[in-house]
């Protein structure tokens, strides 16, 4: 298969997933579009050099995760606040919610768990996104981020704890 055809296949298969991952990580459509394009430029440049040691999908996810993490790091370094698109769109009905934990999520500011993700450490946010949004297993996340499985578990645990803390702080 020639490079052009191979690349078109990758666009058709992965564009949606990559954009979705970037959108959940970065919280804005504009940044997600920019990041998605960066990912595909890297894929195009690296396609010839891809030696097939790992699965193509793992390689693509690895690029995606790294690009999004570097966007978040850059954002943190420059202290840029990006209004999250989800801040406006998460509208939920709090009727029927019983525990205070559930009410934290559906608070009166209509700011959901996704909006709070931007406050997490980029790598932790990446683990949470890969696990919950992209439904990757521990092993897959470990391969994508090149982290030991134990570290993935720790990041996931820390991410949940931080989210809980953020929600509590928000309520107080």
């Amino acid at each position, binding site marked *: 298969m020639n490079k052009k055809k191979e690349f078109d296949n990758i666009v058709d298969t992965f564009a949606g997933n990559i954009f979705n991952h970037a959108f959940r990580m970065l919280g804005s459509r504009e940044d997600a579009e920019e990041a998605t394009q960066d990912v595909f430029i890297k894929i195009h440049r690296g396609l010839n050099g891809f030696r097939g040691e790992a699965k193509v999908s793992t390689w693509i996810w690895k690029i995606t995760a790294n690009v999004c993490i570097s966007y978040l790091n850059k954002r943190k370094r420059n202290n840029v606040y990006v209004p999250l698109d989800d801040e406006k769109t998460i509208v939920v009905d709090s009727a029927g919610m019983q525990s205070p934990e559930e009410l934290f999520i559906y608070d009166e500011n209509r700011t959901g*768990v996704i909006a709070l993700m931007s406050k997490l450490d980029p790598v932790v946010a990446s683990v949470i996104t890969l696990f919950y949004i992209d439904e990757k297993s521990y092993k897959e996340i470990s391969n994508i981020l090149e982290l030991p499985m134990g570290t993935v578990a720790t990041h996931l645990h820390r991410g949940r704890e931080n989210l809980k803390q953020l929600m509590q702080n928000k309520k107080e």
Partner: protein
Amino acid sequence: MQCDEFRRNFNQLRNDKASVSLPVQLQEHLRYCKTCQEYTTFLYAIEEEFSKLEPEIPSEELLTTLRAIGNESVSPVKVFYTKKEILRFVLRLPLIVSMLLTVLLGGNAAVLAQFVLVTAATASMIINSLKPYYFQNTCPPNLTT
């Protein structure tokens, strides 16, 4: 069973995405421990929140741009610039132009250094004055267009 042990086991089950019901030992602990009840409720709520999110679909414009990358026979260039990137480039222009002019007009190193300093100070002033509008959108969500 201690809370730590409960959480470790419970997390392990959630991490494995096991849909089976909790083992009896965990159920026993959960029945009497209010802290762990809150903790598990929180985790279930988070999972539900994530599962409710609809996937974001890329725009046709982005897909066209991505396909165009594949048409480049040599190294592809970025074509899909955002407003922020363009602004950053525009703000750097005076610096680049002044350096070019200095070199073209045969200025020596001292003149060049002066130009660089003055332009950098001006650019930084402009960036700082624009920052609240372009880099930090502080409008409440309902006021943004």
